[in-house]
């Protein structure tokens, strides 16, 4: 008989096991306010057409997914299999810290953040989900490290055409390449607005985004500003507008259709 002091990582191993074999897509940006949560929601709605999907809101300090989906007042149920996603479609469930703390704000010292994110990833019951879409917090912090520890993922990077956003996003791209998580897509959100027959570019041209795409081998997807989208906050599953059709090409490429 041997007694050994060991130190294992129970939550990390559970997260690894529960996420293994799933297609994990992480929607991220170095910048805040570029539309990550909206795009993550729409991508999840699209993947749900092809297979069961869990949308995880990893933005623990600024949850947006529950409001986009209109489930901000629902609490998660817990079963023997874990924290149960809140169903918003037959094939789509949502996980968020909001379903655990309710309307209470989440302000945490840095050393706690990663643990809470890891717990969220570990304790979720993904069930038979084929796709796990992750709405990442803004910035470049623990979330990148935590996710990288537990799973491989397809990064989808979101920016606006503004140089302020693109400069930060370039750091994120370089980090991901160093971490051997080569991003394939750069979504340039709010690139233009269609006004009758003419196209207006409120942030000017998107040339710098294309330069970044060329430099780092990313496909560029320009998304318009769709003012009607605001009417779907709370019922985004009913949105049928242009953003959805534009994102379809990414979703088809990821799932190989």
């Amino acid at each position, binding site marked *: 008989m041997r007694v050994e002091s060991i130190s294992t990582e129970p939550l990390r*191993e559970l997260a690894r096991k529960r996420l293994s074999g799933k297609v994990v897509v992480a929607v991220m940006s170095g910048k805040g306010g570029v539309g990550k949560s909206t795009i993550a929601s729409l991508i999840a709605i699209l993947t749900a057409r092809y297979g069961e999907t869990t949308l995880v809101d990893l933005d623990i300090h600024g949850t947006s997914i529950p409001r986009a989906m209109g489930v901000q007042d629902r609490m998660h*149920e817990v079963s023997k299999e874990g924290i149960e996603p809140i169903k918003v479609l037959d094939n789509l469930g949502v996980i968020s810290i909001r379903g655990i703390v309710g309307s209470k704000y989440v302000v945490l010292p840095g050393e706690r953040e990663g643990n809470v994110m890891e717990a969220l990833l570990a304790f979720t019951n993904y069930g038979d989900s084929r796709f796990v879409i992750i709405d990442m917090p803004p910035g470049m912090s623990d979330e990148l490290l935590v996710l990288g520890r537990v799973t491989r993922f397809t990064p989808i990077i979101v920016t606006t055409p503004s140089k302020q956003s693109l400069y930060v996003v370039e750091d994120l791209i370089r980090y991901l390449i160093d971490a051997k998580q080569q991003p394939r897509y750069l979504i340039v959100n709010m690139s233009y607005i269609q006004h009758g027959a003419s196209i207006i570019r409120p942030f000017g041209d998107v040339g710098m985004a294309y330069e970044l795409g060329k430099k780092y081998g990313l496909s560029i997807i320009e998304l318009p500003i769709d003012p009607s989208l605001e009417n779907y906050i709370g019922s985004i599953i009913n949105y049928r507008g242009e953003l959805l059709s534009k994102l379809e090409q990414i979703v088809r490429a990821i799932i190989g259709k």
Partner: protein
Amino acid sequence: MAVHEWSLAAAIVESVDRWARDNNVDSVIKVVVEIPTIAMIDLEVLRDAFNMLKQESRLVNAELEVRQVSPRFRCRACGYVFSENDVNKQLKELMGEYGEEYPLHLMPDLAPTLLKCPRCGSHDIEMLESQIRVVEVVTK
């Protein structure tokens, strides 16, 4: 009914089984874990779940020993060092507010946002022993 304990048991089994595979250990006969008291874990349910989930692993012959650890807190704003006892009233209120699946049961790391320093009211709380940890195994 307490059910989150099943996920904790799965996490323990998974991580120790991985450790055993990595270290060429065929049979683990005891696992010692530390669990923060504020998580209010039902130890009986945890043990039952562990005994069910260990069957397909190198822990099949293992018993589970649980040490409950009371977290220690320190407020970074005012320096006050305090214990669970000092925030008992706050913990009770939280349990009343949220019911059985209260957030610290699922994620004890959320303590700083849900508790306040009993002296100055700050959320800037440092916490030791915040997570479930496997600390010791006995092998054949």
